[in-house]
């Protein structure tokens, strides 16, 4: 893993010392790698497995089990639209189709310029401000088409 910054490596070493068993650091280590690289490349799976003393398949099964871990690169901005009940009651379906039309992509796809990836997600825990979505780690709430225009215009 030559591509990891010294800073992330340092954080990873600190992390493994926080747990009674270093394998427990697997999820936070994967978060750190994804934060830096944007996804978890195959070579990182092997690297993490060696670091934590795990079989590579144990790392693979964790990456594929949790929806937040990505195996492939995605767009610069990950638009995650909640389609669970409270958001659906507040018009999430319209929000989703507005985004699909505006970006010309379906959920699971990335725009040709690599800026946006659109995903539908389950409840984000912001039901009191429905409909909502996350863009990377930022929450956007009470969405309307006008508000979406503004949000997307504000992103590089």
């Amino acid at each position, binding site marked *: 893993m030559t591509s990891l910054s010294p800073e992330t490596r340092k954080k990873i070493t600190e992390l493994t010392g926080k747990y009674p068993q270093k394998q427990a650091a697997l*999820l936070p280590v994967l*978060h750190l790698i994804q934060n830096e690289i944007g996804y978890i490349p195959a070579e990182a799976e092997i690297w993490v497995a060696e670091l934590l003393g795990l079989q590579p398949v144990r790392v693979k099964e964790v990456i594929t089990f949790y929806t937040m871990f990505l195996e492939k690169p995605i767009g610069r901005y990950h638009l995650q639209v909640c389609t669970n*009940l*409270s958001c659906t*009651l507040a018009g999430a379906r319209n929000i989703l189709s507005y985004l699909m039309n505006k970006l010309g992509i379906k959920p699971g796809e990335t725009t040709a310029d690599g800026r946006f990836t659109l995903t539908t997600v389950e*409840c984000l*825990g912001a039901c009191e401000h*429905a409909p909502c979505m996350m863009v990377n*780690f930022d929450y956007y709430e009470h969405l309307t088409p006008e508000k979406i225009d503004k949000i997307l215009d504000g992103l590089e």
Partner: protein
Amino acid sequence: MAKKEKYLTGLFGLENLHEIEVYLQNGGYEAAKKAVKSMKPEEILKEVKAANLRGRGGAGFPAGVKWGFVPPTADKPKYLCVNADEGEPGTFKDKYIMSHNPHLLLEGIIITSYCVGIHQAFIYIRGEYEMIARRLEKAIDEAKTKGFLGKNIFGSQFALEVVVHRGAGAYICGEETALLESLEGKRGHPRLKPPFPASVGLFQCPTVINNVETIANVPFIIARGAEWFTQMGLPQDGGTRIFGVSGPVKKPGIYELPLGTSLRELIFNHAGGMLEGKELKAVIPGGMSAPILTADEIDISLDFESLKNAGSMLGSGAVIVIDKETSMLDVLQVVTKFYAHESCGQCTPCRVGVSWINKIVQRMAAGQGSPEDLETISRLASAIMGKTLCPLGDAAAMPILGIVEKFKDELLAQMGH
């Protein structure tokens, strides 16, 4: 009638409450100091048991009883896991506690750990709450600097470390044994019980697992006593609950109310009633897993027993309000899609059954349903109930059965029958 005091959320409006100095100015850490410096662990346990503090995560198990299951003298370390996974659809209360008052949670963790003899606690927080996780970490650093965490807490021999651990997007990890697996760096596959986590939990060691709101209640029980606490709620169900209301009401949000408040009062007084032009049709009273109530079933006391007797549950206290214009087929579609997505895949009845039901419902939504579909759904859902390792199977089957039974006519009409 319980006195109305918002002891948990009352200070939330205060600016910078998340900073330790502000928390200290408002009586923060006094309860932890009292517990660690002047109380014996067994006195704390007695008080929490007498307070009848029931779990705020969903199952409602009495916290004191849970703590009491941990063997008093163990040759292994013991752990506390705070469940901050908050994945139950409709639920957003723990987010408020952790972001507005992270030190209250830490204070509860200190008292709980001291009581049970724990020296390492983990806060398992859902991956999406990244910013809240950072706020918690900052609060932990502040508390360490003050000598409230780390070694020699409040000058005593008691030591405690707290680690914030982020999940990565899996509803199942809110189930306590799946949470343990996840914390150990594995897939969130629930474990077979028994053994229960109190004896064999995290890293095979005795472990207490409590929801954020449950732990946040503990400092108040220590500061003001069990008797006061039961007066704040019901004798068998002490304290307030933070209810979360969402859906087409005028004021969606969190409402801290005594247990025993009526569902009608919550929706029509506190949450302001329905939005202009909307009429109430149904309510999901305790997170998506709680079976649905119709509009004429809302004169009900919000407590564990009353909702259980009505065939539903208080669950996480998340109230989702549904209006007349909303099609129950749409609701059913969202519900079945969710559980089909979130089944961990370990038990066949849940993995295959819920996906099968979901396929039928999606077909119905595409206009290709038939009246027999409802019978098939009921049959499949009944075949999942009680046949899985963890409660997710039941959590999926119960709301599906509820919708199909209570809104059968509407569903049939939507299929043209």
